[in-house]
């Protein structure tokens, strides 16, 4: 049986080259979505510092282009699943910041009625399948969604996001093999932010080019510059289309970075400020803003106004969360089961 070799890394070719295959208003929309995520996450850090948010908190700051550029191709019948670092994707998919923030505040109005918390955002309506806390735990449910789409012939595609740290977890390999063996419409999207907690990925992976792992399972592997919204959007358009039409899974290695610590308590001794700065220089929000201004699609003032409105929106969601009630006592054992057995 043959195998396809992985394609070369898709580097940002400069926004000018082919970016006009995206309609100007789509650019604005994606910028707004990235800003929404950024401002939401900034608010969660604040809420955490104020001890209004508990547990672990992992932000998506710096990785917005990966989520927004990929999810731009999600259709309503498609599903998305990811790790505990789930706020960004949930918002990219369309979760209301109110439901997200209220979840973080542990309120009954949260997207999981306050039971899930930061690591477990869910939305059935949006086919957002969570928010999973065990590294590698979401691969199975992710291919299960693809299995269900195929079973019911819905045409859906399953977006499975995961961290670089999850590739040495066995479940990744079991599931990629299963997806290929059974031709399930699933896209495995590695959000390689260079570290799993404090472990640089070359200290965890014998081969840090994850896209090459596609060969073991006879699927196509791609490597994409995840800091460049244009590239992500452009390449993922092709990948999603191909997975949808061929019903063959694909593996996508997104090269990206998280600006903040792994979680809020992380002291970040494993990397230099300088390194962080170098990556922040590629910030997708900055780049896209500059592009829109340069192209005359929006003025600097207009973008400031967008940002201001988004900040207001997030502030409203914080207030919504603050003012929402706690889950009532009867919620305690409720939902342990769906059915009530006759006594």
């Amino acid at each position, binding site marked *: 049986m043959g195998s396809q070799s992985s394609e070369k890394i898709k580097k940002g070719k400069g926004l000018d080259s082919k970016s006009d295959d995206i309609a100007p208003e789509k650019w604005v929309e994606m910028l707004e979505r990235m800003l929404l995520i950024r401002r939401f996450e900034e608010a969660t850090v604040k809420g955490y510092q104020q001890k209004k948010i508990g547990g672990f908190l992992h932000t998506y700051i710096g990785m917005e282009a990966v989520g927004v550029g990929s999810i731009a191709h999600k259709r309503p019948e498609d*599903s998305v*699943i990811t790790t505990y670092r789930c706020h960004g994707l949930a918002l990219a998919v369309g979760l209301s910041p109110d439901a997200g923030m209220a979840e973080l505040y542990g309120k009954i109005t*949260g997207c*999981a*009625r*306050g*039971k*899930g918390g930061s690591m*477990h955002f*869910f*939305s*059935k309506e949006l086919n957002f*399948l*969570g928010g*999973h*806390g*065990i590294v590698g*735990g979401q*691969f*199975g*449910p*992710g*291919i*299960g*969604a*693809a*299995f*269900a*789409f195929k*079973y*019911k012939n819905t045409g859906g595609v*399953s977006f499975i996001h995961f961290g670089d740290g999850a590739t040495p977890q*066995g*479940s990744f390999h*079991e*599931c990629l*093999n*299963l997806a290929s*063996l*059974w031709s399930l419409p699933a896209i495995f999207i590695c959000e390689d932010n260079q570290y799993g907690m404090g472990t640089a990925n070359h200290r965890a992976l014998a081969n840090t080019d994850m896209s090459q792992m596609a060969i073991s399972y006879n699927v196509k592997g791609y490597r994409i510059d995840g800091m460049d919204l244009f590239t992500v959007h452009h390449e993922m358009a092709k990948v999603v289309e191909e997975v949808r039409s061929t019903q063959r899974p694909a593996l996508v290695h997104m090269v990206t970075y998280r600006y903040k610590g792994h979680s809020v308590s992380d002291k970040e001794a494993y990397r230099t400020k300088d390194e962080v700065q170098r990556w922040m220089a590629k910030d997708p929000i900055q780049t896209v803003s500059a592009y829109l201004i340069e192209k005359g699609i929006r003025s600097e003032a207009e973008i400031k106004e967008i940002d201001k409105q988004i900040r207001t929106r997030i502030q409203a969601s914080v207030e919504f969360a603050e003012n929402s009630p706690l889950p009532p006592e009867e919620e305690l054992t*409720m*939902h*342990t*089961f*769906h*059915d009530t*057995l*006759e006594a």
Partner: protein
Amino acid sequence: MAVMEVRTALNEALREEMQRDPNVFVIGEEVAEYDGAYKVTKGLLADFGPQRVYDTPISESGFTGLSVGAAMLGLRPVVEYMSFNFSMVAFDQIISNALKMSYMTGGMFNIPIVFRGPNGAAAQVSSQHSHCMESIFAHFPGCHVIAPSMPKDYKGLLKSAIRSNDPVIFLENEMLYGFKDEVPEGEFLIPIGKGEIKRAGEHVTIIAHARMLHYALAAASELAKEGIEAEVLDPRTIKPLDMPLIAESIKKTNRAIVVEEGHYFCGVGAQMAYEIQSQLFDWLDAPVLRVAQSENPMPYAKNLEADTLPSIEKIIRAAKEVLYLER
């Protein structure tokens, strides 16, 4: 009433439920082309086709997780583990995903999966292949645990399990697959959480499930020869436990022993004994006694294997001890 083997009763249950609901599918190792390692899924591939019956690679964690996702989107997987020993490589998917999904999503998603397969010791399959998993799964909120003894119970409970909208751990027993008994004709269900008195008696209650139920019945026959009338109670469902039935029996007998095939420490017998002593303290004329495995992994050698497992003799001895006839 037709007389049939446990494996046939299970096969009928699967067929009826697959017929009834197109979202029910069967997945596991060798369940399709091979007809199942123990032939429980015999003929399903032929009759329902490859869209409903899936042979998997040896990737228990992978296909368990897959089933969780499929269930989240409305399918109703019946997952076969070739044996429940192999559920251990899928343990995290069962505990952290299947059993938590309903609760941690605030009831938004539910997981109608039946995890089934042989549980417990077969014959001389040694330390890694002889686990009884009932207490392990029952420990975690979010699933029902069923372990029947008789063909009719296997059938009626598997049908209920498949219709349940929650995860069910359905424990079969390899040594019982060939056991034959009467099964009602036509459609019937046995409710989850309901035990059954398999033999009535007034001197002592013997609580035993799965293969041990058969041992308990044999012990009761022996005891009867000595004038001791043991009541044999089959909980059938381990969790939730049918405490009303247990209470009714013990209020009559005032003495109980709890038999299980598995390990002793934190076994299901510990929970049952606790429930009994805390709820029926004033009704007990003697402490509840347990029969379980000796404290060692399962050995291969036939004689040591037999010494490890509960036996009819050990049950008889415990019954007499609780009656203060022997100590």
